[in-house]
């Protein structure tokens, strides 16, 4: 099994997967008396597409929020790149190179697509207020370099045509893509996608799947994604964590997970006698 080899493994389609990048150890998250996540452990390896699936209310989004710092778990440890992570604010997590998208899209509605994607570069802008004010030297170089990255991402996700459009005017599917663009502009080490295909039609889903695969392939970005729909995920991901009622009920390759009796029960329902 892949977990045995600390150096990583090679996938069926010949991609090299590296060592563990992020490890969740015995995470428990409570809201008052309600347990959203109970004692869950899993890891994400470098270069991998890792999926977290489960029925509604399984705690998938909560898990993603723990990784991205929006929730602080009561118990358990988060390890990132070989170091135990102290409790962090979401913006600090982002500064560490973990970018994310949201289930119900959190874009800057008042700004253009270009401006939105540009905000993904905020952490790369280092020059002081004064040099920005006179627009000289370092500030100018920085802006040019950041614009280049942003334009590359915009090209890559095929949203050139709507660069100047205010985000509020875009249809749902395109908004999802702009959100992905903003996350990519940060050149993240780890990209978290919260239901990237929710509410999309078949064609949009296919587009999004292609983009996710291409991002992983071309930039080598490690991706953790949450999905509700099992079918889509199975084709995309290298390994899958399955959650149900806040507990982990399966972890492994899509084939292993598909044949796991607990997973089948959770998804198809099981007779209680």
């Amino acid at each position: 099994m892949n977990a045995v080899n600390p150096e990583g493994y090679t996938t069926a389609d010949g991609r090299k997967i590296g060592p563990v990048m992020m490890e969740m150890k015995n995470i428990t998250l409570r809201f008052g008396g309600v347990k959203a996540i109970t004692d869950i452990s899993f890891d994400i390896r470098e270069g991998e597409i890792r999926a977290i699936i489960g029925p509604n209310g399984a705690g998938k989004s909560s898990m993603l929020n723990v990784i991205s710092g929006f929730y602080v778990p009561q118990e358990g440890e988060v390890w990132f790149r070989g170091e135990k992570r102290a409790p962090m604010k979401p913006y600090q997590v982002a500064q560490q190179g973990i970018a994310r998208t949201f289930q119900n899209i959190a874009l800057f509605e008042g700004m253009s697509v270009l401006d939105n994607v540009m905000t993904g570069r905020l952490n790369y802008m280092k020059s002081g207020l004064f040099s920005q004010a006179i627009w000289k030297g370092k500030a100018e170089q920085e802006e040019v370099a950041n614009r280049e990255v942003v334009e590359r991402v915009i090209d890559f996700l095929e949203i050139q045509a709507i660069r100047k459009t205010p985000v509020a005017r875009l249809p749902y599917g395109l908004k999802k893509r702009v959100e992905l663009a903003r996350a990519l502009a940060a050149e993240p080490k780890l990209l978290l996608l919260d239901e990237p295909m929710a509410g999309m039609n078949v064609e949009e889903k296919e587009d999004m799947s292609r983009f996710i695969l291409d991002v992983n392939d071309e930039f080598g970005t490690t991706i953790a994604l949450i999905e509700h729909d099992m079918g889509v995920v199975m084709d995309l991901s290298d390994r899958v964590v399955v959650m149900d009622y806040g507990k982990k009920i399966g972890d492994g390759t899509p084939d292993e997970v598909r044949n796991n009796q607990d997973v089948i029960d959770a998804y198809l329902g099981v007779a209680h006698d």
Partner: protein
Amino acid sequence: MSDTLIYATEVFINGLMAGVLYALVALGFVLIYKASGIFNYAQGVMALFAALTLVGIMDGQVPFSHLINAIFGTDIHHFGWHLPAVLAIILTMGVMILLAWAVNHFIMRHLVNQEPIILFMATIGLAYFMEGFGDLMWGADIKKLDVGLPMGLNTWIDDTTYNAFGYGFFIDNLDIVATIVAALLVAVLVAFSQYTKQGRAMRAVADDHQAALSVGVSLNFIWVMVWSVAGFVALVAGIMWGAKSGVQFSLSLIALKALPVLMLGGFTSIPGAIVGGLIIGVGEKLFEFFVGPMLGGATENWFAYVLALIFLVFRPQGLFGEKIIERV
């Protein structure tokens, strides 16, 4: 030109100048409202506080001297220096940044995700606290603010118009300076929010907190920055109004004049604050000139509010405000 038209022109120009001063106050409101959704009732008091601090620093007043003297039985009032205006303005700005930090650290930080009305109540509390605090720190007497701005009749305009129309316009130099300063201020604010990293982060926070966090923006830092910028605008407004009418309690009431300006221009628009200010300024001066005599005068006290009321009925989001679209 007929006499009435000439007088009306003078009134119109004076109205524009008054409008600029209203706009200066309204700007402070818009900045905070845009960035954090808080209607900052304390903006007027902030202008008063900034002006008090500026005078105090310039004249070398000992802060809290009444309190110190009462407790220790001493009799100190002044450090005995007189600072140049530029240095005093820079120091005052430092105090306003400190104030911004304190407001965020002790109040706003704890009220994240609360209802707007609760935030509004908090700023009312802040306003009264700062009013008392300003008095305690610098004393309650009326002070004269003189940072060396030109004041009084502009003789060049007076002469030119006299030669052209046979009637010299009375335009105050201070109003002309205020107009130039306001224009510069708006240019700087726009450049800041459009072209700098911090400005971009500020717009991001204004738009969506969650999304801003996810791209690595610290909300606390941005809020302190926004309150500092609002403090800077308050300082500018405080200097202009303080130079015009002395630094005293009534300075804080200019906030009330900014309300109709905001209703006209929209709470979220910087150009709206300017245009709204100009419309109110010109409107109330012209109304007083043409209609005032028929109604027994003093229309300036209520004209702005009635105009704002009419506006509210027909265009609740203001001239430039974001459209309110309720989806069902």
